[in-house]
């Protein structure tokens, strides 16, 4: 639903057609993750050893494309940016959740999306991660009532960087663009100096 929020909010998509669109977007997402090489656990884990920065480059390419696309579609009046559903920020629980996520990513070799992609191509390690992810979702759902006070602490609401920094959205777009392009250049240098080695099985 998050993905289709503008169409959904505008009433173009109903609950059912929204699911169909989500399915198509999901399939495209999976296809491009696989094409980018992110269906490979070794490539993903190598990110954390700074041997292969594909994950960083793919993620920031996606961020940059979406950022510039949304901003300029908004400027052109094609898209009402204010209708995009933002997830609310709960600072401390999300920082801790992020660290847990990262630890699971390094240990398992996949993040949730890429584990589905790799499982679809029949990788057994990805199936294990996928099963673990499902068990984790179930467990979280079961213990949620007990941890709810913590999970809902340090709420900052639906906050965005332009609102937080009190600047025009365009300023943030410019800063993120520079960070991404700088990051790409740096990633290229790091990979060159480290010889682009994948993590090898022991």
């Amino acid at each position, binding site marked *: 639903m998050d993905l289709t929020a503008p169409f959904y909010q505008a009433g173009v998509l109903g609950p059912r057609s929204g699911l169909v669109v989500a399915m198509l977007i999901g399939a495209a997402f999976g296809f491009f993750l696989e094409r980018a090489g992110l269906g490979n656990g070794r490539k993903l884990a190598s990110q954390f050893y700074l041997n292969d920065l594909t994950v960083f480059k793919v993620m920031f390419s996606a961020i940059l494309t979406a950022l*510039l696309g949304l901003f300029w579609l908004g400027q052109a009046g094609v898209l009402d940016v204010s209708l995009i559903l933002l997830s609310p920020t709960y600072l401390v629980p999300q920082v801790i959740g992020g660290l847990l996520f990262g630890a699971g990513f390094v240990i398992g070799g996949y993040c949730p999306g890429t584990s589905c992609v790799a499982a679809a191509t029949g990788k057994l390690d990805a199936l294990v991660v996928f099963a673990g992810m499902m068990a984790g979702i179930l467990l979280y759902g079961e213990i949620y009532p007990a941890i709810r006070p913590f999970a809902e602490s340090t709420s900052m609401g639906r906050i965005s960087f332009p609102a937080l920094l009190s600047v025009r959205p365009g300023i943030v777009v*410019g800063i993120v663009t520079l960070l991404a392009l700088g990051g790409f250049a740096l990633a290229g240098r790091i990979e060159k100096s480290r010889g682009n080695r994948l993590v090898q099985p022991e």
Partner: protein
Amino acid sequence: MINRMLGLTALVLGGAAVLAPASRVTDPATAESIPAHHDAIEAESLAARIMENGTAGLTLVDLRSQSAFESYHIPGAMWLGAADPGQARLPVATIVVLYDEAEESAARAWLLLKAQGYSRVYVLAGGLAAWDEQVLHPSLPPGMSHRAEEEFAARLERSRFFGGSPVPAPSRPISVPRPRPDSTRRDKESFDIGPGGCFY
């Protein structure tokens, strides 16, 4: 070569964004107020409806914590527990009114219920904070006009109906009822029903 061209395109688009005027892009942070624009019910009109017809045809859903619900809730409201409002089976034929302390989780629940196909879902504008301010504890300004006095008598009745109490007059003299403050911006921490607001 392609990488360089893509990078250059991004640089141009990103650089131009810095210079672009802000007016045509609404701040995404306002997205949460969307249900409030289209599908909100004011505290005063909800109160009037309940006084007239009771909660027949209405499903009032309290989205706050259990302890908050137990200490006070709008008469006839139900508490869903920890259940996701999107999963709850609510009576389809009724008008569903969601409320929270402010509007955050009510706006989210509104979206979930809309996605489930509930057609008549409303959010209590300003949440229970607005209810507290406008219905339970309306303030009585001194030296008000005859018309305002009549209006206030109705408010007083409503406040008593819901077990609230009018707030003593502010010390500074004003001749008309003070404009209603933007209750959605009220600090959540300062929210307090007060002893007069306890219904059960």
